[in-house]
């Protein structure tokens, strides 16, 4: 007997919640029984911590499988940095186990509260993409349960097609049971960070182009409300791993220990209009002023996960939620495309607190992986209804015109046509899916919306 509960689920953006049947398998045996019963569970979908922003981890008429009990770390070799774990293990868990022994995540998104399974399915990236690529690049082996209930092991050198379709495959090839991840050696838990302000978009892009090779980590915050000659003004946060000699005496005593942060929580949903042009531009002014050019030694929590210290930060966007929009432009059109995006944002005046710019490095072999060389801009757009939809339509048009691309892990609204135009390797992915899941047992609302399903 597997208990199913009805639960209202959404992505992290809280946009358009949906009632779903949810099961949390208590054991491998129970998981296998669910996948073996095609009739009772015609559609299934794994869901980690629900940090993808849109509808990638919800499924109408299917069974959403939670990972709460699949959180076991099975081995860690401190000599080689190879860790093997279940898909429900979080990046926070990996840090806790590996960092004290001198190994850090090979790459990490802006939150450590994601599961390994989710990180693989979304092929997440971080501030070091231009150097280290995506999370998928560091996966050595995956154990999958396929739609027919069989178990399959794959890796870059073993059924590579299935492996690379699963990396970035949004959970649509099979259920990730276990993964082997190559961690990266480190000598401290700290980073040397240079903060650099730039007065407009040209200066920002030029600086990233020029200095990225000097830094392993590079990311910028962009003021989306600055207009005219300040359009695209930014604070770049450029980092490298700190060495033991960079630390203060106190830090050097325990180079891998960082005092836990005082965590705050947003206890309630803010009123829908709490974030408006005024409050956000005020925030942006303060933020910009608070970051003069300087260098400092910063612990990993502060550098990588500033928002993790505020629980439920997504609630500041109110009950109607928000959508996240991440736009990627190739180098040739980046300047033009980003300018058009920022101008559109300014015209609509839809406040976005967090707009993050990043220069991306080479793509990997995964057909649905997001990044290729270029510039990517990620922003939150509060859900104000039709005006938000109209703005997103205009942004989509800019992206399509400039050869840009949206990120599935962030997307809530992309149409099938847009997706096809942005992901020319879609058919390669579907060829693998046809082989392992011809009946579309693994399906999400997003997959239905953008047409990531096998048609006969």
């Amino acid at each position, binding site marked *: 007997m597997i208990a199913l509960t009805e639960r209202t689920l959404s992505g992290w953006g809280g946009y358009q919640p949906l009632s779903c049947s949810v099961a949390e398998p208590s054991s491998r045996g129970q998981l296998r029984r669910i996948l073996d019963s095609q009739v009772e569970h015609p559609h299934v979908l794994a869901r980690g911590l629900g940090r993808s922003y849109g509808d990638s981890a919800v499924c109408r008429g299917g069974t959403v499988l939670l990972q709460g*009990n699949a959180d076991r770390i099975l081995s860690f070799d401190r000599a080689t940095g190879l860790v093997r774990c279940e898909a429900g293990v979080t990046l926070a868990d990996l840090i806790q186990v590996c960092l004290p022994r001198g190994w850090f995540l090979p790459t990490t998104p802006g939150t450590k509260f994601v599961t390994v399974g989710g990180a693989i399915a979304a092929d997440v990236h971080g501030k070091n993409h231009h150097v280290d690529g995506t999370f998928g690049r560091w996966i050595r082996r995956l154990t999958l349960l396929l739609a027919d209930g069989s178990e399959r092991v794959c890796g870059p050198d073993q059924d590579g097609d299935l492996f690379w379709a699963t990396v970035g495959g949004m959970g649509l090839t099979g259920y990730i049971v276990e993964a082997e991840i190559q961690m990266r050696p480190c000598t401290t838990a700290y980073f040397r960070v240079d903060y650099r302000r730039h007065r407009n978009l040209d200066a920002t892009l030029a600086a990233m182009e020029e200095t990225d090779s000097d830094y392993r980590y590079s990311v910028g915050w962009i003021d989306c409300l600055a207009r005219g000659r300040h359009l695209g003004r930014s604070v770049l946060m450029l980092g490298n791993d700190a060495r033991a000699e960079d630390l203060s005496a106190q830090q050097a005593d325990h180079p891998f220990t960082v005092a836990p942060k005082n965590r705050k929580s947003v206890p309630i949903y803010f009123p829908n209009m709490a974030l408006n042009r005024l409050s956000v531009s005020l925030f942006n002014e303060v933020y910009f002023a608070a970051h003069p050019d300087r260098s400092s030694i910063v612990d990993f929590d502060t550098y990588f996960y500033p928002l993790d210290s505020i629980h439920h930060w997504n609630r500041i966007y109110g009950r109607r939620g928000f959508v996240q929009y991440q736009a990627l432009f190739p180098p040739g059109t980046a300047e033009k495309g980003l300018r058009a995006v920022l101008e559109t944002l300014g015209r609509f005046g839809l406040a976005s607190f967090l707009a993050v710019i990043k220069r991306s490095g080479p793509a990997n072999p995964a057909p649905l992986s997001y990044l290729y060389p270029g510039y990517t801009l990620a922003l939150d757009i509060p859900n104000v209804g039709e005006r938000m939809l109209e703005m997103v339509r205009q942004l989509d048009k800019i992206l399509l015109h400039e050869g840009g691309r949206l990120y599935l892990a962030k997307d809530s609204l992309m149409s099938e046509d847009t997706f096809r135009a942005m992901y020319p390797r879609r058919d390669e992915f579907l060829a693998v899916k046809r082989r392992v899941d011809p009946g579309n047992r693994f399906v999400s609302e997003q997959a239905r919306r953008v047409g990531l399903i096998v048609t006969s």
Partner: protein
Amino acid sequence: MNRTYIILGAASGIAKAVSRSLASRGHDLILAGRSQEELNLLAKDLETRHQVQARILVFDASCRAEVTGLLEASTRLNDAQLVDGVILAYGVMFPQPETEANLDLLALTLEVNLVSSVLVLQAFANAFVTRGRGVIVGISSVAGDRGRGSNYHYGCSKAGLSAFLDGLRHRLHDKGVHVCTVKPGFVATPMTDGLVNPNSPLCARPDQVARDILRAIDRKTGRIYTLWVWRWIMMIIRSVPEFLFLRTKL
């Protein structure tokens, strides 16, 4: 000081959290339960996360011979040393309409939650008394505090367990053996999946229950409710006069 605890029903949600807490303090563990596969995964997890020794012992609580053999088997596994403490965390709960209709299921509930639990804890208690030291933690339930129409089959098995633990503590309080009764209210675990609302303020996460249990071990507390608010809820439920209680739907 490094101890060895045996966790009975180690794959349960509460047991996993308790095992991790004990391991994080450097204690070695013997994980006893039904599924070898799950126990192996858990043992690897504890060894990887906390560098302790975690050994496994497969048994079925509905099989009398395997239950009565647990003490000896655990001592054998622990290099012929009697373990330092035992934590009983297994139990079954079927929807009451099923146990009403199917007496075999009712018998299984009593056999697992009450008979086997009492037998195994008595065996460990005897050995602990002889040695003059030991910790016994029994995870009972608030459901045992007063029989309620909707859940009295599970409730009576846990009431029996609670009474046993009360008596055992009474007898052993000056024998160096600490006996602790743990009464969880709602806990979000696989056993209660679909039955409790994990977002309710009355519902504990397994790691909260584990924290309370470790504190009880440290302080040698006799009886704990977890979350603490259940002590007061159950005090009220116990004190409602029968003629009123009969009119409630609980």
